[in-house]
């Protein structure tokens, strides 16, 4: 029974189904929520789901993290470092967007007392 769960095929299936479910939950929040902070929360959930999806599909049984320790001296049997580098970059960018969005929201709230994006109606024809 554990063999089934330890096969790399199963792990990849779990990763795909799980991360896509998270993606959908975030997407649902993004489209239905009206509070700016909850929109940003949904956005972050989608981002997390994509990161897990990408890193998870690059994992294969028997591979180790791409770092040489005292024992190891060669870079073999390691997971692909490029996806990890890309995700690292994307996480930092996500934080930047988040902080910026929150500061917009705070300033807008100070001006109007609203943080509901569906009632923003200053602009329009």
């Amino acid at each position, binding site marked *: 029974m554990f063999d089934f769960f330890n096969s790399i095929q199963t792990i990849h*299936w779990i990763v*795909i*189904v799980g991360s*896509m*479910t998270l*993606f*959908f939950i975030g*997407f*649902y929040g993004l*489209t*239905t929520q*009206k509070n700016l902070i909850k929109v940003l929360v949904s956005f972050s959930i989608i981002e997390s789901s994509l990161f897990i999806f990408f890193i998870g599909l690059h994992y294969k049984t028997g591979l180790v*993290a*791409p*770092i*040489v*320790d*005292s024992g190891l*001296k*060669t*870079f*073999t049997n*390691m997971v*692909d*470092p*490029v*996806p*990890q*580098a*890309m995700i*690292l*970059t994307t996480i*930092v*960018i996500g*934080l*930047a*967007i988040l*902080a*910026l969005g*929150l*500061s*917009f929201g*705070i*300033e807008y709230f*100070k*001006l*109007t*007392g609203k943080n509901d994006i*569906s*009632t*923003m*109606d200053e602009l*329009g024809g």
Partner: protein
Amino acid sequence: MNLKKVLPLKDIVFSLLSSALLLTLTGILLQVKPDKFKSVGEIFLKLNIQTATANAVTSVVAFFRGIDTVGEVTVLFLATSGVVLMLSETQRDSEKNIAQESFILSIGSRLLLSVIVLFGVYIIIHGHLSPGGGFQGGVVIATAFLLLFLANPNLKLRHNILTLGESLSGVTYILVVLVGLFKMNILLGNFLPHPTNEIGELVSGGIVPVIYILVGIKVGSEMSVIVEYFSKEDYHKEVRDV
């Protein structure tokens, strides 16, 4: 764009549609076969011994795809400037509220501060040997300041020093990129000596640790500024000119 009068029917149709989309997406992804090609990452792993960096992720972030990191640092810098632009008030000092600071908290936070900053510095300078690096270490340092702000709400950071650290590290980073052009005829070339037998030592990897230290200083000062602006108590819940 007033979405107030949304019919429940619309919600149901929308949910059904997006579930169908999700199922198709998952279905397509489940059929995906593993890649037939040798990925860039595998080639980088082979080449990685030449950079003499024990952590392959670090060498990809700081060297092989170094220009992405320059851009990433710029993104953080821009976001910080945006936050400061948004949250800075011209007459901030006029209505300063004196919040009571807790004695134990303020002493405790000062004791913890040095430990956390030390930990952050450790993460930064061991970025090429172990997990972590400039971004993570910089944020850890900023967390120390967050603690300080929570304990002493009236604290003010010295913006001169922060701005100096931020500008200087940023400009030095760009100069490191340009020195590569002049010395190695390629932008961001690894112009410092990096003998491969030194792999795993603290001083190894040529420009990689230098870049991560610069990134650490920059990210640390920027994140401290963000934390400071977000933890300001100056905002009251009064609504201006509605």
